[in-house]
């Protein structure tokens, strides 16, 4: 079995347009949440959303490629370009090797609705234009990025609700571990347009504490009332240790464990047992003892039900006096399909810079979160082993564990 390392990372989110900006936001405990009046006009219960600007790629991506890209592919392009540069992985290297791509994505609502609106208005399918089909397929991110970066290895999209990004990294890890791939571009992407979130808002999942947008997302806090949607793109470059060393690459961390499970119960309500099984599987795979974990980046989205189950699951596995736990969703909101990938990038930033990002807005614990060690201020701390949780609708669970690389 191969050891699997991370040699590059990139992010484009409401915390920043690159890792450096996002790291500063994480350190400062700066929220990226805003109030979007358009959503209110459209009939949203909550107009809160992450502030993510659509990038202008005219100078970087040709017209033929650009017309096939919905916003989520644009975000992923930016984060992937950053990650490849960070990994020192040149186009020449990519052209000479079978570099793969696995991305998490679970919707293309904006593109689908744009295409259907055009069809209804024009009553002629040709007048939808040539780009919409490629924008509206769920694999839009991997089909666009594999084309633009000329990737020749594994190439598909993983759809697993809010655990999509995490599972994509886990699957890339397994493929490399098993020797089926040497390098895989992994990540997650999430559209932010209102169409992507209308029905999600409709089931009462979002926080309606709109008066102070930066204070609405409060994972683990007793007075949490729902999540805040956000999105963007996040990328990590995974490769075998052998490949990284042969390239002379800078190794950011080693992926040592990936656990997955399904709850097999309710479509939207999580449970403790499934999360515990994913956590334990990742720990066993990595040979990681609970006492070795320095920090857990929780999935906790700020919903009353979800955070409670995760707090119970973490306490079940780690017991009293467990590691520091925080949810960066307190600042980012819930980055949904990309969350597992972006949060691993945030974890890498914390590992690299020696700090734990605060769980901002955590003021009062409830009966479950009081058993965890949740900082609401930044903690300066050397982090050797980090656990990252991601859970999604349908009861899909994913846990990733990364470690500071040691020979």
């Amino acid at each position, binding site marked *: 079995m191969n050891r699997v390392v991370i040699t590059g990372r990139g992010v484009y989110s409401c915390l920043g347009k690159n890792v450096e900006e996002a790291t500063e936001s994480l350190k400062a405990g700066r929220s990226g949440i805003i109030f979007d009046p358009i959503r209110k006009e459209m009939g949203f219960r909550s107009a809160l959303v992450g502030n993510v600007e659509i990038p202008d790629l005219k100078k970087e991506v040709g*017209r*033929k490629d650009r017309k096939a890209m919905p916003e989520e592919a644009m975000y992923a392009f930016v984060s992937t370009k950053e990650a490849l540069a960070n990994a020192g992985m040149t186009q020449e290297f990519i052209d000479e090797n079978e570099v793969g791509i696995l991305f998490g994505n679970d919707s293309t609502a904006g593109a689908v609705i744009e295409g259907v609106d055009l069809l209804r208005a024009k009553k*002629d399918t*040709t*007048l939808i234009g*040539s780009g919409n089909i490629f924008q509206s397929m769920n694999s839009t991110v991997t089909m666009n990025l594999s084309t633009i970066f000329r990737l020749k290895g594994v190439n598909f999209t993983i759809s697993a609700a809010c655990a999509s990004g995490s599972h994509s990294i886990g699957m890339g890890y397994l493929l490399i571990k098993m020797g089926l791939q040497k390098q895989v571009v992994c990540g997650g992407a999430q559209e932010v347009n209102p169409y992507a979130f209308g029905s999600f808002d409709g089931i009462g999942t979002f926080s309606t504490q709109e008066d102070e947008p930066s204070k609405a997302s409060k994972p683990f806090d007793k007075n949490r009332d729902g999540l805040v949607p956000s999105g963007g793109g996040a990328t990590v470059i995974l490769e075998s240790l052998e490949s990284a060393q042969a390239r002379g690459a800078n190794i950011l961390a080693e992926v040592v464990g990936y656990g997955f499970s399904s709850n097999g119960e309710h479509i939207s309500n999580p449970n403790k047992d499934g999360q515990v099984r994913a956590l334990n599987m990742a720990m066993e795979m990595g040979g990681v003892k609970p006492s070795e974990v320095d920090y857990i980046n929780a999935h906790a989205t700020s919903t009353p039900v979800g955070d409670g189950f995760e707090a119970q699951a973490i306490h079940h596995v780690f017991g009293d006096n467990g590691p520091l736990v925080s949810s960066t969703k307190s600042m980012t909101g819930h980055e949904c399909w990309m969350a597992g990938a972006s949060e691993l990038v945030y974890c890498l930033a914390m590992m690299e810079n020696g700090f734990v990002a605060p769980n901002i807005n955590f003021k009062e614990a409830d009966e479950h979160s009081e058993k965890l060690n949740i900082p609401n201020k930044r903690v300066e701390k050397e982090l050797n082993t980090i656990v990252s949780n991601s859970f999604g609708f349908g009861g899909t669970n994913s846990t990733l564990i990364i470690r500071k690389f040691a020979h």
Partner: protein
Amino acid sequence: MDKAQIIETVNEFLMEEFEADAADIVAGENMHEALDLDSLDYVDLVVLIDENFGFKTTSEDFQSITTFDDFYDFIASKVG
């Protein structure tokens, strides 16, 4: 709409939507080669013709068009 207006409109959308350089648009030159058109681009040309000239065409119509001049003439024959 006279021919000069057609040429101006076509050249504008080719430069805007197809990001063609003005220098690449030469009346007697091969339009397909100058703009590096593929099958998907013809679909987008159909959309642009509908938006700018208000008539429906098909990508098959482009089979008889070689030069930019042929393209201008084709549109003139429809909106004449």
